[in-house]
């Protein structure tokens, strides 16, 4: 059934909004082992569909149906809404397609490419958590693979213009989901997430601060820094604009549990500017991660890669 004649796996994008469009540009620019067969929306007159057509991408305004109708499409990126994805997830599962979920619906396990993707390649539905989660979980994991992390906290500051209505109406879900991701995938015993919108004009680049509290007062700082730097390189492999503004800062802090070592990491994410503006690093890291997850699944279907 899998059409591997050209060494590519057919993929489709559900959703013709900003996220779907940016993901389309990323896949067209760097298809890897994927062939973008279809981009669908539900609004015949949508700008997104027109844009896709002008780039030679097949489109449809009939939502998920044409994707279900084409058995060659093996991987489906869902960039619609949590509400819609609950329905899509079931339909895609029934016909055996792989769903990569960019909404907060979380019907499948959370994945962060350099941390746990390889554990979930047998899943049929994976979820990308939140933009802040994609940005910060790798760095918490980078510390927790060196030494136990009882507590991790992330503060995400994003430009107001890059926070769409979905984020705005569901801001609690951002904090719940991200905090849970810091625990489940980052490896922190307890996670906390804070999000701040900044309306400055010109818009600020996406910024994240990651704080990790460690039990011991004397920790192997060199090993932590080395692990963090390696992780930053791994993420840069698929998000080129991902960088730490400083080396991790170490401090001894008083906490309710006594003196603890604090590691603070200041992270900046510049978007690739594929379709969305560079300041929207928060959206870029979602679509870049989605593309990466799609590529790894495609390689698995083709029986290549790791």
């Amino acid at each position, binding site marked *: 059934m899998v059409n591997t004649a050209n060494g590519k796996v057919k993929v489709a994008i559900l959703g013709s909004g900003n996220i779907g469009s940016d993901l389309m540009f990323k896949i067209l620019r760097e298809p890897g082992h994927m062939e973008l067969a279809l981009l669908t929306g539900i609004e015949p007159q949508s700008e997104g569909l027109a844009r896709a057509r002008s780039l030679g991408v097949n489109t449809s305004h009939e939502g998920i149906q044409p994707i279900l109708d084409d058995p060659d499409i093996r991987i489906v990126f869902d960039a619609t809404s949590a509400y819609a994805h609950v329905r899509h997830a079931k339909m895609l599962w029934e016909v055996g397609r792989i769903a990569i979920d960019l909404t907060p619906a979380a019907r499948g396990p959370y994945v962060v490419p350099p941390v746990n993707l390889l554990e979930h390649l047998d899943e049929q539905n994976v979820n990308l958590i939140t933009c802040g989660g994609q940005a910060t979980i790798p760095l918490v994991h980078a510390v927790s693979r060196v030494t136990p992390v009882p507590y991790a906290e992330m503060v995400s500051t994003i430009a107001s213009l890059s926070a769409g209505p979905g984020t705005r109406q569901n*801001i609690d879900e951002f904090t719940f989901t991200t905090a849970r991701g810091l625990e489940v995938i980052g490896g922190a015993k307890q996670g906390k997430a804070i999000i701040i919108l900044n309306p400055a004009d010109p818009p600020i680049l996406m910024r994240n601060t990651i*704080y990790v509290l460690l039990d011991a007062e004397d920790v192997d700082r060199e090993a932590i820094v080395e692990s963090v730097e390696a992780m930053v390189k791994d993420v840069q492999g698929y998000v080129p604009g991902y960088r730490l503004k400083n080396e991790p800062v170490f401090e001894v802090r008083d906490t309710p549990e006594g003196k603890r070592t604090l590691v603070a990491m200041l992270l900046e994410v510049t978007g690739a500017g594929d379709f969305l503006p560079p300041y929207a690093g928060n959206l870029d890291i979602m679509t870049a991660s989605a593309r990466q997850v799609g590529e790894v699944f495609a390689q698995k279907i083709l029986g290549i890669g790791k």
Partner: protein
Amino acid sequence: MKAPRLTDTTLRDGSHAMKHQFTREQVRNVAQALDKAGVPILEVTHGDGLAGSSIQYGFSGTNEFDLIEEARGAVTNARIAALLLPGIGTRKELKEAIERGIQVVRIATQCTEADISQQHFGMAKEMGLEAIGFLMMSHMRPPEFLVEQALLMESYGADCVYVVDSAGALLPDGAAARVRALKEALKTQVGFHAHNNLGLGVGNTLAAVEAGADQVDGTLRGLGAGAGNTATELIAATLDRLGYEHEWDVFGLLDAAEFVVAPFMPFQPFPDRDSIAIGYAGVYSTFLLHAKRLGRQYNVDPLEILVELGRRKTMAGQEDWILDVTLELAKQNKG
């Protein structure tokens, strides 16, 4: 003329000056004294609102829900309020705060981002609370812009919308113009919350009252972020002298400030050099102690840090940028 409703937030904004280390005993004594002196609303929460206890803002010494419960148990007439900043606190903490005794919630967003508060207003109204909107950093936008944001909060069910001068950067005419614009556009009540960074706490509060504010905030001894808030006892005394009809006990509030709060204050908030810089540069008042601490640690002038944060147009809650800016300035100073 009827005096505006007075909300005392010693036990919330004062939490910043206390580095979030209020004890149950302090909360009980302050709440009792304010209740006895006829203040109808007392706000009790971590300085940065529900779930503010964090590395970013400072950990609470005593769990805020325990403090809310303590305050609720200490009062007879006053009602207890909590602050909630969507993005920090969630409906989960709001629910717990309701179970522990709050009857009023104040929901705060940057003055440009009111639309992140809809789900919280929804829950507050569903659960029968009085719900008040807080437009933080109001000096950063003109009156007509604030009106649009206030109308959003009104549409979500707000019973009152506050013009919040988080940076203590407004001058009296700016405070009055904002309150007046909201009064003209809204059906709900309008409030005003001041910081004293430019020494205008009382002046701005009076200007807001003259412009029609239905509710105003104070803290005993001005205990609060930056140079502190307008002192509750000063609002009480000055509005009394201006002839407003009220039900508070002026001398009772003077006693509460002098004999209950002053003895445990770590310092008297005052427009000192760095606090004036906060008002002048228009940055969030809570940055004060963080900038002083990091300035000492990295040998950078806090004034320089605060002015740079103003230049970068930082908003409420961006305490992590203080570290960022301090590290940059420390590097520059070396180089």
